[in-house]
């Protein structure tokens, strides 16, 4: 039997379940590398979709909706679930639903399932964590459970892959079912309250194709559902007033009624309960969330992450640099001397190297952070630091964003969607970019040696300490800025922590690798593209100038070199410097030089500051492009090239401690990332907040750089 042809060529199947039900593991198992992360239109919640080949050759689109506890949302993620499911005809409205529940917490996980049943969309119940249930000796009579709950039921495991073949088979049958539209009032999963029944009869004429429960939800969420027209709102509001429909009271009533309906079913279908004993999780939490030791362990873990970031990445980074260096030498010796060869080696290959060299650090950081998330530790961090975070106007969940900010502000800002309070969420978004992200690492690495000598105090190198100092400075700036915003911004929304602490589980490595793969891919292709383009533009700008200017500069340099009686190398250096100055890039740098002179920056650094606005990591690539023109031999790393730069007139070192520290501080504080600004605009739905953020971050950067330069020089 082939499934009935749906009007859509690819039927949509939604994966729905409570947070921590293991939905992502199942989604990853079913779609693997076939998944795409996009955006739900209008809102900025990540929309994960994947194509699925079902038995019999049907293809279906699988949508991974965010985890939710019920149709009464408090966070943005949960609102999206409601929005996609209450409006038949919505572009995310699924043809079928696969509901995932944690079999070990079935009584807690069926509320949303019971609500879904009242939508009339064909739904099946997949009981996840079959492997854990088996270990604990937990058994259900699946046939009985499915019959009483009115949905096909099966056991699956996102960890082992058990039951997924059967799941696909059942999806085919599910798609063949026809959605029920005309649901009689008395067939909902719970007994409608008299007000609800009256409200439904009053408004159903206005909403053809809606089930009774969807109409009840429209009344509950009238304030924020975006698709209701003003006329529809009036109809609903009138019905609410006529019937005495009480939002909160009816929510509590409905929820209790539903629990009363399914709790006995679950208990009767349970053949064997799991052996209850103080679980592994609770014993581990005795240590990990201990009032005194918990925070100590947390900081220890963070320290280990940063240590790993530097030590593990060193070898692959050196390898990448050597490989690209070798490639450049090979190309230069084997290709004819032509400006296209120079563009290839000094523009493209150097730029590419500047992208690929960060891949190890980004991969390691996301690997470790997603590992902590996957085992269930992040929720503990949120719990432990909630009180402190509240002092700064943030939420315990902000800890996750701030830590992820150490990798990249963009996913970190997106992770704030789980914070339901708007003020707390906004502050988290505004201050997260202060946390030193991985893009600042190369800038710090290159510059720190100009400020701090490579000596050791005991076992610790001074440079490593300075490194940590820069990170702490970023954290301090984030918290202080949060405090300021807490005092300025006003809100009367309730704030929640109320956080489920999932059982510690061995990580499903597939999930971790998929996250790492996705982030590395995004970095290489999204950020990488920008970096590469900028490297090429820069090379062109620094090699060409207004007509005649380059030639003139070259002749002038040759002439003054002859006068001063310089040797061959010095002559070449002088020529290069003067040519650079005459080029388009030099002129742009010169143009902004007056503004950055007080910070100790010359026009070359000015170029780097401008290009860094595309992405901070461009700094190094810019330096590479600018200075590889000064010296022909590629054996030197960028750092060594920079260390040799002297002012052509005064002969003083350009990267003096004062200038380098000033530059470091600028990179710690300044908002120099187009992508972050774009994300903040998307998340706050206005240009106001990203502009405010840009102004205060860059202002702070300018001020602190200026003070540092004044103090040291």
């Amino acid at each position, binding site marked *: 039997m082939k499934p009935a042809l749906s009007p859509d060529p690819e039927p949509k199947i939604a994966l729905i379940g409570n947070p921590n039900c293991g939905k992502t593991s199942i989604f990853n198992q079913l779609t693997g590398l076939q998944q795409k992360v996009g955006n739900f239109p209008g809102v900025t919640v990540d929309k994960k979709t994947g194509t699925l080949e079902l038995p019999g050759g049907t293809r279906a689109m699988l949508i991974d909706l965010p985890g939710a*506890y*019920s149709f*009464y949302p*408090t966070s943005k993620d949960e609102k999206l679930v409601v929005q996609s499911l209450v409006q038949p005809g919505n572009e995310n409205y699924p043809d079928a639903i696969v509901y995932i529940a944690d079999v*070990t*917490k079935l*009584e*807690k*996980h069926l*509320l949303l399932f019971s609500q879904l049943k009242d939508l009339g969309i064909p739904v099946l119940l997949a009981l996840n964590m079959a492997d854990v249930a088996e270990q604990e000796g937990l058994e259900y009579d699946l046939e009985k459970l499915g019959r009483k709950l009115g949905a096909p039921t099966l056991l699956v495991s996102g960890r082992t892959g058990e039951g997924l073949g059967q799941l696909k088979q059942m999806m085919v049958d599910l798609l063949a079912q026809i959605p029920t539209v005309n649901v009689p009032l008395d067939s909902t999963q719970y007994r409608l309250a008299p007000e609800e029944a009256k409200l439904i009869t009053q408004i159903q004429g206005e909403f053809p194709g809606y089930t009774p429960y969807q109409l009840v939800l429209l009344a509950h969420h009238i304030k924020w559902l975006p698709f209701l027209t003003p006329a529809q709102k009036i109809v609903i509001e009138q019905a609410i007033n006529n019937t005495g429909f009480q939002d*909160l*009271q009816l*929510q*509590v009533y409905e*929820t*209790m009624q539903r*629990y009363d309906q399914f709790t006995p079913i679950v208990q009767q279908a349970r053949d064997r309960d799991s052996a*209850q004993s103080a679980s592994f*999780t*609770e014993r581990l*939490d*005795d240590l990990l*969330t*201990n*009032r*005194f030791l*918990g*925070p100590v362990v947390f900081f220890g873990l963070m320290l280990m992450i940063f240590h790993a970031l530097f030590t593990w990445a060193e070898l692959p980074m050196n390898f990448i640099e050597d490989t690209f260096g070798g490639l450049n030498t090979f190309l230069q010796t084997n290709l004819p001397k032509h400006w296209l060869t120079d563009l290839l080696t000094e523009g493209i290959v150097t730029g590419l190297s500047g992208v690929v060299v960060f891949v190890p650090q980004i991969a390691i950081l996301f690997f470790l952070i997603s590992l902590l998330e996957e085992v269930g530790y992040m*929720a503990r961090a*949120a*719990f*432990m*630091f*909630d*009180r*402190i975070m*509240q002092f700064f106007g943030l939420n*315990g969940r902000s800890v996750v964003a701030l830590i992820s900010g150490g990798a990249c502000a963009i996913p970190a800002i997106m992770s704030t969607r789980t914070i339901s309070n708007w003020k707390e969420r906004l502050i988290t978004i505004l201050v997260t970019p202060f946390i030193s992200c991985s893009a600042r690492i190369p800038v710090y690495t290159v510059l720190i040696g100009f400020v701090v000598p490579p000596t050791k105090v005991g076992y610790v190198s001074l440079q490593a300490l300075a490194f940590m100092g820069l990170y702490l400075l970023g954290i301090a700036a984030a918290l202080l800025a949060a405090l300021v915003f807490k005092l300025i911004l006003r809100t009367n929304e*309730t704030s*929640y*922590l*109320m*956080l*489920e*602490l*999932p*059982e510690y589980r061995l990580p499903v490595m597939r999930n971790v690798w998929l996250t790492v793969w996705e982030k590395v891919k995004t970095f290489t292709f999204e950020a990488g593209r920008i970096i590469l383009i900028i490297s090429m533009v820069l090379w062109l700008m620094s090699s060409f100038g207004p007509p005649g200017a380059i030639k003139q500069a070259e002749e002038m340099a040759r002439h003054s070199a002859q006068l001063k009686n310089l040797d061959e190398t010095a002559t070449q250096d002088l020529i290069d410097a003067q040519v650079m100055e005459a080029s388009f890039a030099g002129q742009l740098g010169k143009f902004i030089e007056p503004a950055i002179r007080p910070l100790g920056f010359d026009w070359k650094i000015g170029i780097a500051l401008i290009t860094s606005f595309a992405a901070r990591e461009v700094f190094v690539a810019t330096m590479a492009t600018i200075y590889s023109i000064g010296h022909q031999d590629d054996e030197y790393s960028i750092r060594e090239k920079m260390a040799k730069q002297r002012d052509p007139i005064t002969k003083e070192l350009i990267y003096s401690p004062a200038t380098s520290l000033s530059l470091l501080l600028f990179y710690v504080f300044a908002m120099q990332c187009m992508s972050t600004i774009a994300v903040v605009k998307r998340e706050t739905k206005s240009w106001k907040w990203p502009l405010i953020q840009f102004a205060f971050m860059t202002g702070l950067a300018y001020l602190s750089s200026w003070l540092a330069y004044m103090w040291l020089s």
Partner: protein
Amino acid sequence: MVATTNTGKQLAKMKIGSKGHVSHFTDNCMACKLLSMGILPGTLIEVVRAAPFGGGCYIKADNLLIALRKSEACSIVIR
């Protein structure tokens, strides 16, 4: 459900390690959220530990582990 009786004790005032059944909630808004997570009247709750730096607590409701703020724990009345 939300009741007006004053018997029972707020969860926030219970000793670490003590247990009790939920009687009712004092705040409709909190009640909705707690109910949807599976904390119902009659649910057995154990106060497992206090949060570092004060404020919240770590509770066990049936086999569910939940972190609550003090204000959240205040809205639950134990009988």
